[in-house]
Each structure stands twice: as structure tokens, then as C-alpha cells.
């Protein structure tokens, strides 16, 4: 008779689990992407159409003259399109990860498999969903006359801190969505509010009283601004502040993964499913 069956934790175990369940991850990614479009005649063409609708709406807004974003070095629709893409990159991974338990509760209470598989699936689906609009956005940025520099190739890597931050907050909130829905809703709305306090639809140089003060202390200003600047102008926006924020996010990520591995076994029984 062997020792008591226990649940093992740790990074090596995570890597082993992800490798052992690689085929499940592939299947879940496939389901996640295809399920949504199975009933649609134009199918995954929607992945291309949505960003195009978004561009058209920002162009219309800009032409109407109701927006006063501050001075931008590139045409405003190009600026705001890229900024919102970066913000959506962060917020979508947060929503995806934060719903892993409630979204697949039935599967979780019926089948034993490593739960990190669900996180890996969300990250892959997120990257696929981001890649297609990104390619369209780059074409549109070229159309608006943006000259990319070689440093723009670093753009995908500059998104890593935002990805880790979205995953980390998502992992914590995934538990709250099960046992403390009020807290989860507060964070959802709080992040919506944070977007207003981050230079997304306006520039960091905007003159707007208290808002100008707040955006100086908002780490998202640097996380979003750094990625945007490197793609649009090839420059580095507040590199030291960006690096400091990135290091803190990395530590936060390590902590949340550890917490996730310890706490996930206890959350399963709180999922109401029969």
C-alpha cells in the first residue's frame, strides 16, 4: 500500500501537468474559439470584423469633434485604437481567468484534472483573439501614416507585465466569483473605472485638473504608455517606472499562482452543480 494520496504543488508539477494534459488544453482552446461561431454563417470572420467596426466608430467620433484627447503625434483614431487594444489585452485576460471556476463549474465538480489547464487554455485563447485584431490594427496604423521603427518589434514583449497582471488579478477574483460575488463585482467595476483614470482615450499630457494628478500615480499609465510608445514612435515611455511596475507585478504573479494552487481544491465544493 502506497502513501496517502495527496495533491502536489509547485512549478515543476505545473509544467508536468500542463505537458500531461496538453491535448486537453488543445481541445478546450478549440471548443472556446469554435463553439461561439458554430451557429454563425460567417464563422471566425467575426474575429476580423469586430476590430474593423471599432476603428470605424473611433473615426466617426473623431470627425464629430466631440473628443478632446490632447495632442497626439499620430492621428487620434490610430492612437486610441492602439490604446484600447492594449487595455483590452489586459482586461480580457482578467475576465477570462477570473471566470474559470464559474464558467466550467460542471466540468470541475465532475472530473478531476489539473485546474491550471483552464488557466493555460484562457491564456492561449486570449493570445489568439488578440493576435488577429493586432494585425488589423497594424495595417490601419500604416494606413494612418505611422512609421514603425525596429524597436517596435519589442512591442509583444512589453505586453508581458499587463498579461501577468491580468492573470494575477483574475486568479484572485476567480475565487471571489465563487464565494464573494460582491467583491468580484466591485473589482469588475473598479477596473472599468480604472480605464477612465488611465490615458487610453486621451494622452498622458492631458490638462484636466485632478485627473492629471491621478494619472501620474496610476501604474497603468506607464504599463499602457510604454507599450504604446514603443509601437507608435519607437521610444521608451518612462522606462524606469515601467520596469519597477513590471518587477512588482512579477512578484505578485508568483504569489497568486502559489495561492491558486493551495486554494483551488477547497473552492470546488463551493461550486453549486449537480
Amino acid at each position, binding site marked *: *500500500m502506497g502513501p496517502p494520496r495527496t495533491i502536489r504543488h509547485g512549478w515543476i508539477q505545473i509544467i508536468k501537468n500542463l505537458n500531461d494534459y496538453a491535448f*486537453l488544453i*488543445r481541445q478546450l482552446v478549440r471548443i472556446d474559439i469554435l*463553439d461561439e461561431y458554430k451557429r454563425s454563417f460567417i464563422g471566425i470572420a467575426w474575429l476580423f470584423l469586430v476590430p474593423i467596426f471599432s476603428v470605424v466608430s473611433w473615426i466617426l467620433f473623431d470627425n464629430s469633434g466631440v473628443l478632446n484627447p490632447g495632442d497626439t503625434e499620430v492621428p487620434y483614431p490610430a492612437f486610441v485604437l492602439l490604446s484600447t487594444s492594449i487595455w483590452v489585452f489586459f482586461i480580457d485576460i482578467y475576465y477570462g481567468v477570473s471566470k474559470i471556476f464559474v464558467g466550467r463549474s460542471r466540468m470541475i*465538480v465532475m472530473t*478531476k484534472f489539473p485546474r491550471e489547464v483552464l488557466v493555460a487554455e484562457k491564456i492561449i485563447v486570449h493570445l489568439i483573439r488578440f493576435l488577429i485584431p493586432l494585425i488589423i490594427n497594424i495595417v490601419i496604423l500604416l494606413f494612418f501614416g505611422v512609421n514603425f521603427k525596429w524597436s517596435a518589434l519589442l512591442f509583444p514583449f512589453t505586453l508581458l507585465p499587463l498579461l501577468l497582471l491580468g492573470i494575477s488579478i483574475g486568479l484572485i477574483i476567480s475565487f471571489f466569483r465563487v464565494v464573494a460575488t460582491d467583491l468580484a463585482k466591485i473589482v469588475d467595476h473598479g477596473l472599468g473605472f480604472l480605464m477612465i483614470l488611465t490615458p487610453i482615450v486621451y494622452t498622458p499630457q492631458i490638462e484636466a485638473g485632478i485627473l492629471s494628478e491621478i494619472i501620474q500615480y496610476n501604474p497603468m499609465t506607464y504599463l499602457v504608455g510604454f507599450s504604446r510608445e514603443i509601437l507608435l514612435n519607437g521610444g521608451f515611455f518612462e522606462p524606469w517606472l515601467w520596469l519597477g511596475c513590471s518587477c512588482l507585478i512579477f512578484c505578485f504573479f508568483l504569489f497568486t499562482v502559489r495561492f491558486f494552487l493551495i486554494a483551488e481544491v477547497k473552492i470546488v465544493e463551493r461550486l453549486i452543480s449537480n
Partner: protein
Amino acid sequence: MKKRKPLLSVRDLNKTFSNSDIKYSMLHGIQDLFYDLLGIKNTHTKLRDKEFWTLKNINFDLFEGDILGIVGSNGSGKTTLMRTVANIYQASSGAIYGKKNLKVIAIFTLSTGFRELFTGRENIYIKGAMFGMSKSEIDAKLAFIESFSELGKHLDKPLGNYSSGMKARLAYSIAIATEPDVFIIDEALAVGDSVFKAKCFDHLKQYVKKPNKAVLFVSNQIRKILRISNRLMVMQEGQIIHESSDIREGLHFYIKNCLSHLSEEERKHKLNRILDAGI
């Protein structure tokens, strides 16, 4: 007589649940998360407010070759015990011993994990992956699943068009294709046509003759238990109240216990009707 090897041993297993007041369940969940956040080891020995023992002092061995039937009224803790054995739930205290890499596969509801918009064949890969199989493993078992499920050309139709019996055929065929060491069937064969169910029972009896294989069979359908099990466990309010290798005797105990709320006369009358039906 040759001594049989236990595949799985459950010792002093306890599990608490919050009662039907969902807010208390959430509160206890927050409390547990808070302990985890602070790294405090939190094994319950006492009940918190509005908690109850869903499993209390559970001890049993599952030997190779066993088809251990588990019966009990609704809410007696059968499914919680199966989910704990399957490692889906964590025990509040106690331990489950088993050999290293013991493969435990559980089917609770047959349709779980199936996608209605995908074909039966695509669902074989989806469900097989959920059971931890790789693509090559599923490829190797595809012929067996096709043949055992007897679904033929239906496999290339969307699963949404399947009857519950067809889904049961497919789900059972995939689960058994994983060749688990311990196969948990929790009310999962309640649906489906009787010919296929008979085929499953015959297959299970042959299956446990292989080395290191056993089945935990949860059902309240006494005829099924009688037909398939070689041992029986009766559960009530989270405890094992009776164990027997004589299935008829065990089922008599279970039925009498179920009818204990009736008057002597009513109990005799009902018991006779059940006995007449073949127990």
C-alpha cells in the same frame, strides 16, 4: 485462500459541508481562502456554525476484482464520498491510501463535458482529453469506442441530435476505454436502453477480472446492485452503517432501514412486494 490486495484504502475520512444556507457556505469559503492566504493549515476537527458532517469516520478497503455497490438514501453522502475518492473534493481529515499513479476515473453524469454542437467523434476526443488521454491514446482506442458504443454512422452527427441513451453509450464507452484502475460509476447507468446496460454489466464483470482493477458502483436501483456487485456498503447520514459480502442480506438491511419510518404492518407489506420482485 489467497489474500486479496487492497487497491484503495480509506481511513478515518471526514468531510464537512455547509448546510443549505448558501451565505454561510460562502462565508466559510472566504474563511478558508483567508487561512490559505496566510498559509495557516486548516484541518477541521470541529464544526463551524451551520456546518454538518457530510462524511463521518469513513473506513473501507477496495480490493482488486471488487465491484463494490454503494447504496443509501438521497443525501447520505454517496456522491461526496465518490468525489473525495476521485480527488475532486478534499477531505477535511483522514486519508485515502493507494498505489502510486492509481488511475481513478469517475462518471457522475454521463453528459458532462460533451459539446452539443460538435459531432460524436469530436466529442470522443474532447471527453477522452478530459480523462487525461493524449491524442495518440484516443486514436488507439477509437475502434474500441466505435465498436462498444455501437453508434456507427451517428458518430459523425452533432451530439445535440443524440438521445440520452446514445449519449450514455458514448460516455460509458469513452470512460471504460481509459482503462482505469478504479472505475467509479455514480448513478451514471440510470439512463440508456436495457440491452446496452446489460452489455455494460457483462463488460464490467469481465473487466474487474484483470489485475489491479476494481469498480465502485453507486446506485439506488437494487436490482442492478444485486446483479453486479460482490460487496455492498450501506450509507446513511454520512456514515457507513452496514457492510456485507452477502448482497441479498445487505440489500435486506438497506430496504428495512429505508422503511423504518413505516408501521410494522406497512413495512411488512412493502418488503414483501420488493421481495416478490426478485430480491
